[in-house]
């Protein structure tokens, strides 16, 4: 037998999601995002705690529940590799008991929105990754689910296909009022699809709220980018904010929110400004800072625990 170590993949994660809401799970690799998603879908049994989705206990996997949900995973596919996607659609039609008329109408509509054309009649193995993902979406939406679980749906896709898939998912949510729960490594996915984010780090919920609130909390500073001409007074420049990037004519500064308007007017007065933009810090950066803080906090705790252990060891035992 292999030795097993009990690891708490998820611990103390509590939240409620309203029907029709779009929520993104964020977190570093192995943080427990997918574990949480799979518990919601009913694939994993929580060893403790309660999960309820659409009035059902997911782990019971009752037909009345499964009829309402779908799961799409960017790294796994349900389409039969050697057959055209249309044949898998047929199988799902039987499984979900969709009438022939509904089936034809839905597949037609979904294929049109995703610009699939006749691709659904080509063997899956001959399709590109993006085409396959689009067909996966069709296969998962034939029964018109009310709750969509999407685990990294755009992974590996080229940028234009990512955009297309995002638009499609958003559109489905808008038209059918479906609830959307998404995990993704791509911040763009989350920014485009999810007004609300839940951050899970090391199995713990560390943030639950609006995406812009999260950005404000982690990185209240704004990015001030200037394109300048002529002589630059370095001292004035440095007094505006923290210097992040500096080339011959381009300067990027980090400025606290409340000092921003003063900094902008001083820059305009002091320099010959060709161009000026103010932005929030890039999401990827905000996230890596957030996760780095989480790591630092844990290491601090671990050090404290080690110290306590060392103290215990000094106690004489038996």
């Amino acid at each position: 037998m292999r030795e097993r170590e009990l690891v708490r993949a998820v611990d103390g994660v509590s939240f409620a999601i309203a029907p029709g809401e779009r929520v993104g799970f964020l977190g570093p690799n192995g943080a427990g995002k997918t574990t949480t998603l799979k518990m919601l879908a009913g694939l994993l049994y929580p060893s403790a705690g309660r999960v309820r989705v659409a009035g059902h206990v997911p782990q019971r996997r009752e037909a009345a529940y499964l009829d309402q949900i779908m799961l799409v995973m960017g790294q796994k596919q349900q389409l039969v590799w050697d057959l055209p996607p249309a044949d898998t659609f047929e199988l799902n039609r039987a499984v979900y008991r969709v009438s022939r008329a509904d089936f034809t109408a839905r597949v037609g509509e979904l294929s049109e929105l995703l610009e699939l054309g006749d691709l659904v009649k080509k063997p899956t193995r001959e399709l590109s990754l993006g085409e396959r993902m689009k067909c996966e979406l069709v296969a998962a939406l034939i029964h018109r689910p009310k709750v969509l679980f999407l685990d990294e749906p755009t992974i590996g896709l080229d940028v234009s296909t990512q955009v297309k898939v995002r638009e499609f998912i958003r559109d489905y949510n808008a038209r059918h009022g479906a609830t959307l729960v998404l995990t993704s490594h791509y911040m763009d996915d989350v920014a485009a699809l999810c007004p609300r984010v839940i951050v899970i780090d090391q199995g713990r919920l560390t943030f639950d709220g609006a995406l812009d609130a999260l950005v404000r909390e982690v990185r209240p500073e704004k990015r001030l980018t200037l394109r300048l001409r002529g002589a630059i007074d370095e001292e004035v420049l440095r007094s505006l904010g923290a210097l992040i990037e500096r080339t011959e004519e381009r300067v990027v500064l980090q400025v606290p929110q409340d000092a921003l308007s003063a900094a902008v007017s001083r820059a305009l007065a002091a320099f010959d400004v060709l161009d000026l933009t103010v932005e929030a810090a890039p999401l990827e950066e905000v996230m890596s800072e957030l996760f780095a803080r989480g790591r630092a906090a844990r290491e601090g705790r671990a050090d404290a625990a080690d110290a306590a252990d060392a103290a215990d060891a000094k106690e004489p035992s038996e």
Partner: protein
Amino acid sequence: MIARHLAVLGASLRLSFLLAMQYRWDFVLDGVMSIAWTAGAIVPLYLVFEDRAAIAGWTYGEALLVMGWFTLLDGLLKGAINPSLVTVIEQIRNGTLDFVLLKPADAQFLVSTARVHPWRLLSLGASLAIFVYAFRLLGAWPSPGAVLYALATLGAGVLVLYSVWILVISVAFRVVRIDNLRYLFETVFEAGRWPSTVYKGALSIVFTFVIPLALMTTYPAEALLGALEVERFVAGWLGALAFAGLARLVWSRSIAAYTSASS
């Protein structure tokens, strides 16, 4: 509920046939090969009986009946049961079983009907040929009642075979790679070619109670010959039902412990 499962069975069989058509030459060859193997498998039986009239109370013609049922079950095993098994193990390995478990139909049913190799079912024809040959040697044809009785007995054998297979999958949930277990079972199953009374001592106990090969091939052959007492028929069915119940229980537990493959 039943309507849904019948519809799923239909759709699933359709997929299997479409897949078989994709690689039809491979599968036809597979079917033809299995018939050739069946023909070859009769040779040792023929040689053993060449210089004696009966072994453990079985004449050549009677032993051929056992072989006939074995051939039929072997076709079922390799045509309907193994393909699904291979499919499921693959799904456990790469995590796509998640999709199966989230379908609103019984997971055991979905898994059991996942894949069929239709060409393998050609060996059902081969078993029919063996029966015809055997009864011509025996010089008497079975009554329709005996045929029905034999088929009813076979039902219990098929149930056991299926249950063993569910147990094998349940093991796959925990250890993922079960190639050797599968080969072990297939090798043990080969012993079902011979009437169970050929085996003595410990083997006889194993083949009657642990892996009831006797129930799968010998009992149906005896039923055809009018030599299977009702008591053994009933006991066989009770045993088969108990086996199926156990398999279902172990299966449910394995599913509950399933942790899915990480993405």
